[in-house]
């Protein structure tokens, strides 16, 4: 089985187990304030790391390429409180334009 299939099936199985678990345990086991606080911070750390890695790396090499204009546009759009589709499409358009100019 390919790595991708393992990832698809493994991630799905654990995702469901986590959801089901929540509906099945008594509440008192999971309302420690520290655990709750860390739980809200984990997505921030992981998603931010994904943003950085997907914008500025190619496998295990750091690079600055056409994507940087896309990220700049996304950042500006978010600061201006643009809706999600504008952020994503604006970023794609800027990056694609830069890619075509450079290649």
């Amino acid at each position, binding site marked *: 089985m390919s790595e991708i299939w393992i990832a698809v099936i493994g991630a799905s199985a*654990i995702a469901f187990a986590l959801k089901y678990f929540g509906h099945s345990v008594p509440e008192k086991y999971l309302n420690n304030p520290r655990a709750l606080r860390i739980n809200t911070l984990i997505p921030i750390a*992981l998603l*931010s790391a994904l943003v950085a890695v*997907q914008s500025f790396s190619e496998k295990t090499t750091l690079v600055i390429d056409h994507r940087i204009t896309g990220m700049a546009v996304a950042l500006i759009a978010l600061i201006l409180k643009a809706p999600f589709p504008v952020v994503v499409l604006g970023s794609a358009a800027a990056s694609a334009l830069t890619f075509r100019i450079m290649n």
Partner: protein
Amino acid sequence: MKRATASASLSVSFTVGLYGIAFGAAGIAAGFSLLQTCLLSLLTFSGASQFAVVGVMGAGGSAISAISTASLLGVRNSLYGLRLAPLLKLKGLKRVVGAQITIDESTGVALGQSDLGEDAMRQGFWLTGIGVYIFWNFFTVVGALGAQAMGDPAAWGLDAAVPAAFLGLVWPRLTNKLERTLALSAMLLALVMTPFVAAGVPIISTALLAVAFGWKARR
């Protein structure tokens, strides 16, 4: 059926479902097949976790780091279930179905109906959960087929659209200085580690930063 609840559920379902286009395209851009991309939406059904799987694999990471990153992002669904369990009191098959649609949006709408009573809350949960499920999966197929038709992801800006989508997901969560500092630190740590460790490891490692920040912090 409460009209306000139904309309909140429907508008959330449709708007969130539309993001499925971005996910479908991201899956193809990361080298997943149409089937693999659609199965993630059908089975994993948790936006951030799905983006993490294709993001980590697309960056050359291993299945283990993709699964761990996605699972850490899915822990919050446990907490939602915990919160909703006393309200929904699900058993048997209903618990299986209810668990699968326990996500950010169904929980958000359910809790948002508390002024209208428990019936409205339950209604909000089911309508939003099922609604997002339908729209999210439909638009995943649309995005994946669109991306397949496009060819080179870079020529269409897809390789920037994916991190832009992540940025859009994390942005509303950055409500105070601690969270913003954490976001910047996680970005820096991940980039600094990138040349030295296997792909995927820099991302999952930042979970430790979240633990460190959350351990002592007072909001």
